[in-house]
């Protein structure tokens, strides 16, 4: 290993200027992996949707009834 080290040596320039300019750039928000939904959550959402739909249907039916009676 010692021999290897002597063979490969890094090159560091000892003359000349080294300048680093750090420009602050604006950052983008990162890409977003979407979380998968658990079965329970899917079922809950489905049930909620179904419940809302039935309520809406009932309300529509009631409205129609009222319009007929008026």
């Amino acid at each position, binding site marked *: 290993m010692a021999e290897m080290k002597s063979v490969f040596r890094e090159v560091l320039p000892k003359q000349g200027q080294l300048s680093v300019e*750090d420009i*602050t*750039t*604006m*950052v*983008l*928000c*990162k*890409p*977003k*992996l*979407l*979380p*998968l*939904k*658990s079965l*329970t*959550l899917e*079922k*809950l959402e489905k*049930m*909620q949707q*179904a*419940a*809302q739909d*039935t*309520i809406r249907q*009932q309300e529509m039916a009631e409205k129609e009834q009222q319009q007929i009676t008026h």
Partner: protein
Amino acid sequence: MGWEMEPLLLAWSYFRRRKFQLCVDLCTQMLEKSPYDQEPDPELPISQAVWILKARALTEMVYVDEIDVDQEGIAEMMLDENAIAQVPRPGTSLKLPGTNQTGGPSPAVRPITQAGRPITGFLRPSTQSGRPGTMEQAIRAPRTAYTARPITSSSGRYVRLGTASMLTNPDGPFINLSRLNLTKYAQKPKLAKALFEYIFHHENDVKTALDLAALSTEHSQYKDWWWKVQIGKCYYRLRMYREAEKQFKSALKQQEMVDTFLYLAKVYISLDQPVTALNLFKQGLDKFPGEVTLLCGIARIYEEMNNISSAAKYYKEVLKQDNTHIEAIACIGSNHFYSDQPEIALRFYRRLLQMGVYNCQLFNNLGLCCFYAQQYDMTLTSFERALSLAENEEEAADVWYNLGHVAVGIGDMNLALQCFILALVNNNNHAEAYNNLAVLEMRKGHVEQARALLQTASSLAPHMYEPHFNFATVSDKIGDLQRSYVAAQKSAAAFPDHVDTQLLIKQLKQHFAML
């Protein structure tokens, strides 16, 4: 008329084939024929059987696993006094996201949720909550949960489901709870169990359910662990955690069940004692080695405590036991993606696809992984499919947002602009899209537009550091040092380790000192 099946058998068959509505309808017909008066006639065993079957079918229709359900209302969250320590030590609480000691991804790489945790790969009813710090944040619907939070849990989902079921029954509810003679039912253990589940899950009348359970456990001379678990469940719903803990512990002494361990751990998590919950899970694992739900519980707690590497370890353990566990695959996949290994993440998501998961989220993730793993041929088709599978506008918005990133990646700025605009069209509150749009506008030199967009973004999502930091940079460039400083401070609060923010603040402080 040809052959006709015995109606009760037919109803049973419907029940076992999970055709609950048909089963219920048939049971209703049968109950109309044989007279019943609120309660099954002991002389008519068939009518009793039908009655139980109907109750069970109605329960199954709305049944969700109680272990998974945890919906906190605003009131419970903000007025929560159940936590043991109000100022807990680091690493012992779920409320503080915790400093990232374990070398998990920083917010510069992995987006965070409103509560300051890295976004997870899997969404459960309880991951939706995430405790917000202020009332204002609590009222605002979190980015991941698309339904707004109810005021209290007693006005939430359960009740809405209940009213719907009442509306669908024009003759009123199946069982009139207020007219039930609970003592009588408590003496018939088999009937009582079905009745309890009906009251608890279908009617959501926790108090009556608790009364029934208390009477029943008394009747069984406190020897039935099942009733103790049910009482514990009721106490949990009523937010009486210490009482629930007692019941679960006593049930565990009688009979060790995985479910009971899970319920008890849920109590500890509500009491904000994650370490106790972890110990409990480990105790459970001694009794039930390799039990997936327990392992998964440990992984979830580590993930919530922001200890991503331990979480990943346990998710891998889960996969060793059950290699089709969707949650574990999704979480490990997202971990790999955000630790710069999209090609490995891609393999996990492909596995999900093989298993038959087929939804918008999965195709979106596949598209992103393909793009960052340089498999360009699949990228756009995946996104196209994700868009066609999107169920609502919010999902479509997220897909367009990610597609915008692909466009930025290939240098097509016009496409990127269009994508982010489309994300905003679909979801007007998409803070990330506002921020990225601002960056693109800034590249075109439209400073005022960019500033307006950034302001919108930062007011929509104060937990993200990007809009604050960008606003600080832009303001600094046009010489509005005071605003720049204020925004930079906000950015530093959201992400303390961000080097550029620190540099900017240092520069600004030097400027102010020179004045």
